[in-house]
């Protein structure tokens, strides 16, 4: 195994594109090292991106949106008060990842690229309409976070492609988001179900809503019908019922030791309802 501490993403792409064996980019390493130690992957080349200038930066763009470097850790994300005010749901998803020790290293980009259907930060990113900048042998492109996951452990990134930054849109007026997950204990476990909701209100009425579910399908999924169930309502009982029905209808879960198919479908509805209520209160400025 060779270790490369690259100084630019171009260099990362060059090494990755010319590699003949197995390559892994290294951000926080909290997935890569576990897989390495377990022997489930035996990389020939490890490309550490943490020395590329700017990878630890969190910047507000002129349009009010955010650019987040590929190596920003959970702790660094949570310490950014302005970002937390704009996108509390995105931040709380990332902050649920692992322990204090894991938070010191784990990144949004790594969580996304590891490709777990239960990745805690991904539903919040999808609901927010986040995109990522990707650089590869064929040049650069911007891709929706929702288009990155392919199947468990796999992404739609092409060979040699590396994510350089995560982009959040401007939060704008009267918006709110939230992420909730169910785990059997209070800390340090993998989501049995996760749900993120991002919405906007005008007065009491919801004008936009996006819902994403985790751990109930081979990838984290957007559920357009669940968002549509909320739009035009003031989060009344009928809208919540329609939301719950749409969220449950989108579930294609598996049964495992964490939860059965039936349990996951049930909980998806419960979490969708709760996350929508919290996002709604945040959008109306009633809670932080």
């Amino acid at each position, binding site marked *: *195994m*060779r*270790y490369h*501490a690259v100084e630019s993403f171009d260099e990362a792409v060059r090494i990755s594109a010319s590699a003949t064996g197995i390559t892994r980019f*290294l951000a926080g*390493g*909290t997935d890569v*090292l*576990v897989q*390495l*130690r*377990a022997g489930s992957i035996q990389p020939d080349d*490890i490309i*550490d991106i*943490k020395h590329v200038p700017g990878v630890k930066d969190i910047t507000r763009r002129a349009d009010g949106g955010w650019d987040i470097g590929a190596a920003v*850790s959970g*702790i660094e994300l949570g310490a950014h008060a302005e970002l937390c005010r704009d996108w509390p749901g995105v931040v709380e998803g990332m902050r649920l990842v*692992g*322990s*204090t*020790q*894991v938070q*010191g*290293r784990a990144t949004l980009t790594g969580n996304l690229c590891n490709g777990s259907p239960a990745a805690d930060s991904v539903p919040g990113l999808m609901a927010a309409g986040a995109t990522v900048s990707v650089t590869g042998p064929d040049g650069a492109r911007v891709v929706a976070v929702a288009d990155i996951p392919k199947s468990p452990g796999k992404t739609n990134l092409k060979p040699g492609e590396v994510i350089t930054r995560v982009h959040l849109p401007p939060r704008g007026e009267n918006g709110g988001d939230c992420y909730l997950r169910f785990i059997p204990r*209070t*800390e*340090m476990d993998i989501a049995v179900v996760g749900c993120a909701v991002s919405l906007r209100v005008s007065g009491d009425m919801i004008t936009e809503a996006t819902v994403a579910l985790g751990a109930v399908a081979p990838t984290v999924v957007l559920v357009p019908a669940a968002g549509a169930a909320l739009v035009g309502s003031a989060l009344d009982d009928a809208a919540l019922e329609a939301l719950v029905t749409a969220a449950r209808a989108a579930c294609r879960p598996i049964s495992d030791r964490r939860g059965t198919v039936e349990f996951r479908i049930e909980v998806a509805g419960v979490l969708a309802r709760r996350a929508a209520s919290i996002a709604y209160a945040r959008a109306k400025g009633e809670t932080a």
Partner: protein
Amino acid sequence: MSRIHITTTVNGETAEFLTEPRETLLDVLRNQLGLTGSKEGCGTGDCGACSVLLDGVLVSSCLVLGVEAQGKTVETIEGMATDGALHPLQRQFIEHAALQCGFCTPGILVAAKALLAQNDNPTETEIRYWLAGNLCRCTGYDKIVRAVQDAAAEMRGAA
């Protein structure tokens, strides 16, 4: 396999070592630098027995490659007592009998010290969440929490 020369600062002193890229920082600390206070409980980030500070940030050293330590500062349990005098956390752990087999203790002490550096008066809830990644199979945690609280009080000068 080619070994890489790394220069780092461990507990305030320059340390150099040769490492294979796949070796973890924990392997290097224990096997090359003779710092066996950091323990390997799991090797997969779950137990916290290998906790160290890397450039001031609490991490599991089993999830850091040795090569990543180049140019960085590492603080381990061996740097906690100064000139033979135990740190208040160490004394309170003894005082409260907050350890039995002791395997988790170095990691918990390092993690607790990192907590007190940023919060000099943590609540029980804050302590339990902060230490959620430090597993202890013996004590049941209560004595650990009380030891941390009393050390915090002592360090605030309130004891």
